[in-house]
Protein backbone atom coordinates (compact mmCIF):
# COMPACT_ATOMS: atom_id res chain seq x y z
CA UNK A 1 0.00 0.00 0.00
CA UNK A 2 2.69 2.42 1.09
CA UNK A 3 4.76 1.41 -1.91
CA UNK A 4 1.93 2.26 -4.33
CA UNK A 5 1.40 5.60 -2.62
CA UNK A 6 5.10 6.31 -2.82
CA UNK A 7 5.14 5.45 -6.53
CA UNK A 8 2.22 7.80 -7.20
CA UNK A 9 3.83 10.70 -5.31
CA UNK A 10 7.14 10.12 -7.10
CA UNK A 11 5.33 10.09 -10.44
CA UNK A 12 3.50 13.33 -9.70
CA UNK A 13 6.73 15.02 -8.57
CA UNK A 14 8.60 13.86 -11.65
CA UNK A 15 5.74 15.05 -13.87
CA UNK A 16 5.83 18.44 -12.18
CA UNK A 17 9.57 18.77 -12.68
CA UNK A 18 9.34 17.81 -16.36
CA UNK A 19 6.46 20.29 -16.85
CA UNK A 20 8.37 23.15 -15.24
CA UNK A 21 11.61 22.42 -17.04
CA UNK A 22 9.93 22.14 -20.44
CA UNK A 23 7.91 25.35 -20.01
CA UNK A 24 10.91 27.32 -18.77
CA UNK A 25 13.36 25.87 -21.31
CA UNK A 26 11.10 26.17 -24.35
CA UNK A 27 11.86 29.84 -25.11
CA UNK A 28 15.56 28.92 -25.41
CA UNK A 29 15.28 25.70 -27.37
CA UNK A 30 12.40 26.52 -29.74
CA UNK A 31 13.57 26.35 -33.35
CA UNK A 32 10.46 27.80 -34.98
CA UNK A 33 10.29 31.01 -32.96
CA UNK A 34 9.77 34.37 -34.65
CA UNK A 35 13.50 35.20 -34.69
CA UNK A 36 14.37 31.92 -36.43
CA UNK A 37 11.54 32.40 -38.92
CA UNK A 38 12.70 35.92 -39.75
CA UNK A 39 16.42 35.13 -39.97
CA UNK A 40 16.42 33.75 -43.55
CA UNK A 41 14.48 36.71 -44.99
CA UNK A 42 16.01 39.62 -43.09
CA UNK A 43 19.37 41.32 -43.29
CA UNK A 44 21.44 41.93 -40.17
CA UNK A 45 21.45 45.53 -38.93
CA UNK A 46 19.26 46.74 -41.79
CA UNK A 47 15.55 47.30 -42.32
CA UNK A 48 13.69 44.57 -44.27
CA UNK A 49 10.03 44.80 -45.20
CA UNK A 50 7.98 41.76 -44.25
CA UNK A 51 5.56 40.51 -46.93
CA UNK A 52 2.00 41.64 -46.23
CA UNK A 53 -0.22 39.28 -44.28
CA UNK A 54 -2.44 37.21 -46.57
CA UNK A 55 -3.88 33.68 -46.45
CA UNK A 56 -0.93 32.23 -48.38
CA UNK A 57 1.65 33.84 -46.11
CA UNK A 58 2.33 31.51 -43.21
CA UNK A 59 5.55 33.19 -42.09
CA UNK A 60 4.18 34.06 -38.66
CA UNK A 61 0.73 33.55 -37.16
CA UNK A 62 -1.55 36.39 -36.04
CA UNK A 63 -0.14 39.16 -38.24
CA UNK A 64 -2.40 42.19 -38.52
CA UNK A 65 -3.40 42.58 -42.21
CA UNK A 66 -4.01 46.30 -41.64
CA UNK A 67 -0.40 46.93 -40.61
CA UNK A 68 2.72 47.21 -42.75
CA UNK A 69 5.63 45.58 -40.95
CA UNK A 70 9.39 45.96 -41.35
CA UNK A 71 12.03 44.28 -39.23
CA UNK A 72 15.57 45.19 -38.26
CA UNK A 73 17.35 42.12 -36.92
CA UNK A 74 20.14 43.55 -34.84
CA UNK A 75 23.48 42.52 -33.40
CA UNK A 76 25.06 45.07 -31.09
CA UNK A 77 28.42 43.34 -30.75
CA UNK A 78 30.07 45.71 -33.27
CA UNK A 79 28.54 48.84 -31.75
CA UNK A 80 25.30 50.65 -30.92
CA UNK A 81 22.55 50.99 -33.49
CA UNK A 82 20.98 54.17 -34.76
CA UNK A 83 17.35 53.80 -35.70
CA UNK A 84 15.35 56.37 -37.60
CA UNK A 85 11.72 55.80 -38.58
CA UNK A 86 9.69 58.52 -40.32
CA UNK A 87 6.14 58.79 -38.99
CA UNK A 88 3.45 57.63 -41.42
CA UNK A 89 0.13 59.41 -41.88
CA UNK A 90 -1.95 57.21 -39.60
CA UNK A 91 -0.01 55.44 -36.90
CA UNK A 92 3.58 54.30 -36.53
CA UNK A 93 5.19 52.27 -33.78
CA UNK A 94 8.54 50.71 -32.99
CA UNK A 95 8.76 47.61 -30.78
CA UNK A 96 11.91 45.96 -29.43
CA UNK A 97 12.30 42.25 -28.76
CA UNK A 98 15.19 40.24 -27.33
CA UNK A 99 16.56 37.19 -29.15
CA UNK A 100 13.92 35.16 -27.27
CA UNK A 101 10.97 37.40 -28.22
CA UNK A 102 10.72 39.22 -24.91
CA UNK A 103 9.05 42.56 -25.67
CA UNK A 104 11.16 44.96 -23.64
CA UNK A 105 10.22 48.33 -25.12
CA UNK A 106 7.73 49.86 -27.52
CA UNK A 107 7.05 53.43 -28.53
CA UNK A 108 4.53 55.01 -30.89
CA UNK A 109 4.59 58.20 -32.93
CA UNK A 110 2.56 60.17 -30.38
CA UNK A 111 4.84 59.36 -27.45
CA UNK A 112 7.86 60.11 -29.66
CA UNK A 113 6.26 63.48 -30.43
CA UNK A 114 8.28 64.14 -33.61
CA UNK A 115 8.01 63.59 -37.34
CA UNK A 116 10.79 61.03 -37.15
CA UNK A 117 11.20 58.49 -34.36
CA UNK A 118 14.94 58.48 -33.60
CA UNK A 119 16.50 56.07 -31.17
CA UNK A 120 19.90 54.75 -30.17
CA UNK A 121 19.91 51.10 -29.20
CA UNK A 122 22.84 49.77 -27.21
CA UNK A 123 23.77 47.23 -24.60
CA UNK A 124 24.02 48.34 -20.99
CA UNK A 125 27.83 48.11 -21.19
CA UNK A 126 27.91 50.38 -24.24
CA UNK A 127 25.58 52.83 -22.50
CA UNK A 128 27.87 52.98 -19.47
CA UNK A 129 30.89 53.50 -21.73
CA UNK A 130 29.34 56.66 -23.19
CA UNK A 131 31.33 59.72 -22.10
CA UNK A 132 29.22 61.84 -19.80
CA UNK A 133 30.18 65.18 -21.28
CA UNK A 134 29.01 64.14 -24.72
CA UNK A 135 25.91 66.09 -25.62
CA UNK A 136 24.30 63.12 -27.33
CA UNK A 137 22.93 62.22 -23.91
CA UNK A 138 20.84 65.38 -24.19
CA UNK A 139 17.15 64.98 -24.73
CA UNK A 140 17.18 65.03 -28.53
CA UNK A 141 17.97 61.33 -28.89
CA UNK A 142 16.36 58.57 -26.92
CA UNK A 143 18.69 55.81 -25.72
CA UNK A 144 17.30 52.31 -25.26
CA UNK A 145 19.22 49.60 -23.40
CA UNK A 146 18.89 46.18 -24.96
CA UNK A 147 18.94 43.30 -22.45
CA UNK A 148 20.43 41.02 -25.12
CA UNK A 149 23.13 41.57 -27.75
CA UNK A 150 20.88 40.32 -30.55
CA UNK A 151 17.19 40.78 -31.12
CA UNK A 152 14.50 42.25 -33.31
CA UNK A 153 13.20 45.76 -33.88
CA UNK A 154 9.72 45.68 -35.41
CA UNK A 155 8.48 48.78 -37.24
CA UNK A 156 4.75 49.05 -37.86
CA UNK A 157 2.72 51.51 -39.91
CA UNK A 158 -1.05 51.25 -39.93
CA UNK A 159 -3.04 51.37 -43.17
CA UNK A 160 -6.49 52.57 -42.03
CA UNK A 161 -7.95 51.11 -45.23
CA UNK A 162 -6.51 48.58 -47.71
CA UNK A 163 -5.88 51.29 -50.34
CA UNK A 164 -3.42 53.01 -48.00
CA UNK A 165 -1.21 49.94 -47.51
CA UNK A 166 1.24 50.99 -50.25
CA UNK A 167 1.60 54.38 -48.56
CA UNK A 168 2.28 52.76 -45.17
CA UNK A 169 4.90 50.47 -46.72
CA UNK A 170 6.53 53.38 -48.52
CA UNK A 171 6.79 55.26 -45.25
CA UNK A 172 8.57 52.32 -43.60
CA UNK A 173 10.87 51.98 -46.60
CA UNK A 174 12.40 55.34 -45.64
CA UNK A 175 13.47 54.16 -42.22
CA UNK A 176 17.02 53.16 -41.41
CA UNK A 177 18.73 50.95 -38.89
CA UNK A 178 22.52 50.80 -38.86
CA UNK A 179 25.54 50.39 -36.68
CA UNK A 180 26.96 53.68 -35.45
CA UNK A 181 30.47 54.24 -36.77
CA UNK A 182 31.22 57.57 -35.11
CA UNK A 183 31.22 56.06 -31.66
CA UNK A 184 33.70 56.25 -28.77
CA UNK A 185 35.64 54.62 -26.93
CA UNK A 186 38.42 56.32 -28.94
CA UNK A 187 37.89 60.03 -28.29
CA UNK A 188 38.53 61.26 -31.80
CA UNK A 189 38.35 64.88 -32.75
CA UNK A 190 36.89 64.24 -36.17
CA UNK A 191 34.32 61.75 -37.28
CA UNK A 192 35.81 59.01 -39.48
CA UNK A 193 34.67 58.35 -43.00
CA UNK A 194 30.87 58.49 -42.97
CA UNK A 195 28.94 55.42 -44.04
CA UNK A 196 27.36 55.44 -47.49
CA UNK A 197 24.12 56.16 -45.69
CA UNK A 198 20.70 56.12 -47.37
CA UNK A 199 19.47 59.69 -47.96
CA UNK A 200 16.88 60.01 -45.14
CA UNK A 201 19.32 59.13 -42.34
CA UNK A 202 19.57 62.33 -40.34
CA UNK A 203 22.90 62.42 -38.59
CA UNK A 204 23.65 65.59 -36.71
CA UNK A 205 27.29 66.50 -36.89
CA UNK A 206 28.55 67.26 -33.49
Amino acid sequence: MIRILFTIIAGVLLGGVVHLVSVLALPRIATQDAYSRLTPITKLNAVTQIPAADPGNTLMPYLDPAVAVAVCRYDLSTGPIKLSVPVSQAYTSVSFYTRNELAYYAINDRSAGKKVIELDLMTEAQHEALPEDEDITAADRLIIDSPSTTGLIVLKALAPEPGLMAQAQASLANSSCQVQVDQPPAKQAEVPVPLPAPPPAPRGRR
Partner: protein
Amino acid sequence: MTTTRGTELGTLTIGAWTARPRIGTTDIDPYSRATITRNGELPIGTGDGIAFTARADDKKKPLDGRCDVVVSGVTPAARFWTLTLYDNKGHLVANSLQRYGFTSEEIVRGADGGFEIHIASRARAGNWLPTGGIERYSLMFRLYDTPVGVATRTKRDAPMPQIATVGCP
Protein backbone atom coordinates in the same frame (compact mmCIF):
# COMPACT_ATOMS: atom_id res chain seq x y z
CA MET B 1 -1.20 21.49 -24.60
CA THR B 2 -0.44 24.37 -22.25
CA THR B 3 2.12 25.72 -24.67
CA THR B 4 -0.18 25.79 -27.68
CA ARG B 5 -3.28 27.12 -25.95
CA GLY B 6 -1.84 29.11 -23.07
CA THR B 7 -3.35 29.29 -19.61
CA GLU B 8 -5.40 31.68 -17.55
CA LEU B 9 -2.48 33.40 -15.83
CA GLY B 10 -2.69 37.20 -15.73
CA THR B 11 -5.62 37.38 -18.12
CA LEU B 12 -8.09 40.20 -18.53
CA THR B 13 -11.51 38.92 -19.59
CA ILE B 14 -14.22 41.32 -20.72
CA GLY B 15 -17.32 39.66 -22.13
CA ALA B 16 -16.20 37.13 -24.72
CA TRP B 17 -12.79 38.79 -25.07
CA THR B 18 -9.55 37.82 -23.37
CA ALA B 19 -6.24 39.68 -23.30
CA ARG B 20 -2.95 39.12 -21.52
CA PRO B 21 -1.71 42.66 -20.86
CA ARG B 22 1.65 41.48 -19.47
CA ILE B 23 2.48 39.63 -22.68
CA GLY B 24 3.98 42.84 -24.10
CA THR B 25 6.20 43.52 -21.09
CA THR B 26 9.24 41.91 -19.49
CA ASP B 27 6.85 40.68 -16.74
CA ILE B 28 5.37 38.11 -19.13
CA ASP B 29 4.48 34.80 -17.47
CA PRO B 30 6.49 31.69 -18.44
CA TYR B 31 3.49 29.96 -20.02
CA SER B 32 2.77 32.83 -22.40
CA ARG B 33 6.49 33.00 -23.25
CA ALA B 34 6.53 29.32 -24.10
CA THR B 35 3.37 29.71 -26.21
CA ILE B 36 4.80 32.67 -28.13
CA THR B 37 8.14 31.07 -28.96
CA ARG B 38 6.53 27.78 -29.90
CA ASN B 39 4.00 29.41 -32.25
CA GLY B 40 6.52 31.85 -33.72
CA GLU B 41 4.53 34.93 -32.73
CA LEU B 42 5.70 38.39 -31.74
CA PRO B 43 3.51 39.75 -28.94
CA ILE B 44 2.28 43.32 -29.27
CA GLY B 45 4.41 45.56 -27.05
CA THR B 46 2.66 47.47 -24.27
CA GLY B 47 3.74 50.86 -25.63
CA ASP B 48 2.20 49.87 -28.96
CA GLY B 49 -1.19 48.47 -27.95
CA ILE B 50 -3.08 45.45 -26.70
CA ALA B 51 -4.74 42.47 -28.40
CA PHE B 52 -7.98 40.80 -27.28
CA THR B 53 -8.97 37.37 -28.57
CA ALA B 54 -12.39 35.72 -28.76
CA ARG B 55 -13.01 32.08 -29.64
CA ALA B 56 -16.64 31.97 -28.52
CA ASP B 57 -19.62 34.35 -28.42
CA ASP B 58 -21.09 36.01 -25.31
CA LYS B 59 -23.04 32.80 -24.53
CA LYS B 60 -19.80 30.77 -24.74
CA LYS B 61 -20.86 29.10 -28.01
CA PRO B 62 -17.69 28.51 -30.08
CA LEU B 63 -17.45 30.78 -33.12
CA ASP B 64 -18.66 28.81 -36.16
CA GLY B 65 -17.95 30.05 -39.70
CA ARG B 66 -21.18 28.50 -41.00
CA CYS B 67 -23.30 30.62 -38.61
CA ASP B 68 -24.20 34.32 -38.69
CA VAL B 69 -22.34 36.18 -35.97
CA VAL B 70 -22.77 39.87 -35.15
CA VAL B 71 -20.11 41.95 -33.39
CA SER B 72 -21.64 45.21 -32.21
CA GLY B 73 -21.54 47.98 -29.67
CA VAL B 74 -18.81 50.19 -28.35
CA THR B 75 -15.03 50.02 -28.19
CA PRO B 76 -12.50 51.20 -25.60
CA ALA B 77 -10.60 54.44 -26.05
CA ALA B 78 -7.85 54.01 -28.64
CA ARG B 79 -6.44 55.95 -31.57
CA PHE B 80 -7.11 53.02 -33.89
CA TRP B 81 -8.52 49.54 -33.58
CA THR B 82 -8.54 46.58 -35.94
CA LEU B 83 -10.68 43.44 -35.92
CA THR B 84 -9.27 40.38 -37.71
CA LEU B 85 -10.55 36.85 -38.35
CA TYR B 86 -8.09 33.92 -38.10
CA ASP B 87 -8.29 30.19 -38.47
CA ASN B 88 -7.14 27.94 -35.62
CA LYS B 89 -3.51 28.26 -36.68
CA GLY B 90 -3.58 32.05 -36.66
CA HIS B 91 -3.63 32.42 -40.44
CA LEU B 92 -6.00 34.60 -42.46
CA VAL B 93 -8.92 32.91 -44.21
CA ALA B 94 -8.98 33.23 -48.01
CA ASN B 95 -12.02 34.90 -49.58
CA SER B 96 -12.84 36.54 -52.90
CA LEU B 97 -13.15 40.03 -51.37
CA GLN B 98 -9.71 39.79 -49.77
CA ARG B 99 -11.45 41.09 -46.65
CA TYR B 100 -9.70 39.75 -43.56
CA GLY B 101 -10.86 42.30 -41.03
CA PHE B 102 -11.88 45.88 -40.41
CA THR B 103 -10.18 48.94 -39.00
CA SER B 104 -11.88 51.65 -36.95
CA GLU B 105 -11.55 54.01 -39.93
CA GLU B 106 -13.28 51.95 -42.60
CA ILE B 107 -16.23 50.68 -40.63
CA VAL B 108 -19.72 51.89 -41.61
CA ARG B 109 -21.39 53.33 -38.51
CA GLY B 110 -24.99 54.07 -37.61
CA ALA B 111 -26.30 57.55 -36.79
CA ASP B 112 -25.48 57.03 -33.10
CA GLY B 113 -21.85 56.14 -33.85
CA GLY B 114 -22.38 52.47 -33.06
CA PHE B 115 -21.50 49.73 -35.52
CA GLU B 116 -22.44 46.19 -36.45
CA ILE B 117 -20.06 43.76 -38.14
CA HIS B 118 -21.71 40.73 -39.74
CA ILE B 119 -19.48 37.68 -39.78
CA ALA B 120 -20.92 35.04 -42.11
CA SER B 121 -20.01 32.79 -45.01
CA ARG B 122 -22.53 34.46 -47.41
CA ALA B 123 -22.61 38.15 -48.30
CA ARG B 124 -24.36 40.52 -45.88
CA ALA B 125 -25.24 44.20 -46.18
CA GLY B 126 -23.04 46.71 -44.37
CA ASN B 127 -19.84 45.55 -42.70
CA TRP B 128 -19.49 41.97 -43.90
CA LEU B 129 -16.55 39.87 -42.76
CA PRO B 130 -16.44 36.57 -44.71
CA THR B 131 -15.63 33.34 -42.86
CA GLY B 132 -15.03 31.15 -45.89
CA GLY B 133 -17.36 28.67 -44.19
CA ILE B 134 -14.64 27.25 -41.91
CA GLU B 135 -15.89 25.46 -38.85
CA ARG B 136 -13.92 27.22 -36.11
CA TYR B 137 -12.31 30.62 -36.14
CA SER B 138 -11.10 33.22 -33.70
CA LEU B 139 -11.39 36.99 -33.69
CA MET B 140 -8.60 39.32 -32.67
CA PHE B 141 -9.40 42.86 -31.60
CA ARG B 142 -6.32 45.07 -31.47
CA LEU B 143 -6.21 48.49 -29.87
CA TYR B 144 -3.35 50.77 -30.94
CA ASP B 145 -2.26 53.69 -28.77
CA THR B 146 -4.67 53.02 -25.94
CA PRO B 147 -4.86 53.54 -22.16
CA VAL B 148 -6.14 49.95 -21.87
CA GLY B 149 -3.37 47.77 -20.44
CA VAL B 150 -1.90 46.28 -17.31
CA ALA B 151 -3.95 48.57 -15.05
CA THR B 152 -7.27 47.71 -16.70
CA ARG B 153 -9.51 45.54 -14.55
CA THR B 154 -13.16 45.92 -15.55
CA LYS B 155 -15.58 46.48 -18.38
CA ARG B 156 -15.98 50.11 -17.28
CA ASP B 157 -12.36 50.86 -18.24
CA ALA B 158 -12.61 48.91 -21.46
CA PRO B 159 -16.11 48.48 -22.90
CA MET B 160 -15.68 45.72 -25.48
CA PRO B 161 -18.14 44.93 -28.29
CA GLN B 162 -20.70 42.17 -27.90
CA ILE B 163 -20.51 38.96 -29.92
CA ALA B 164 -23.79 37.19 -30.68
CA THR B 165 -24.57 34.16 -32.84
CA VAL B 166 -27.84 35.16 -34.51
CA GLY B 167 -28.50 32.13 -36.67
CA CYS B 168 -27.11 28.85 -37.88
CA PRO B 169 -28.12 26.98 -41.00
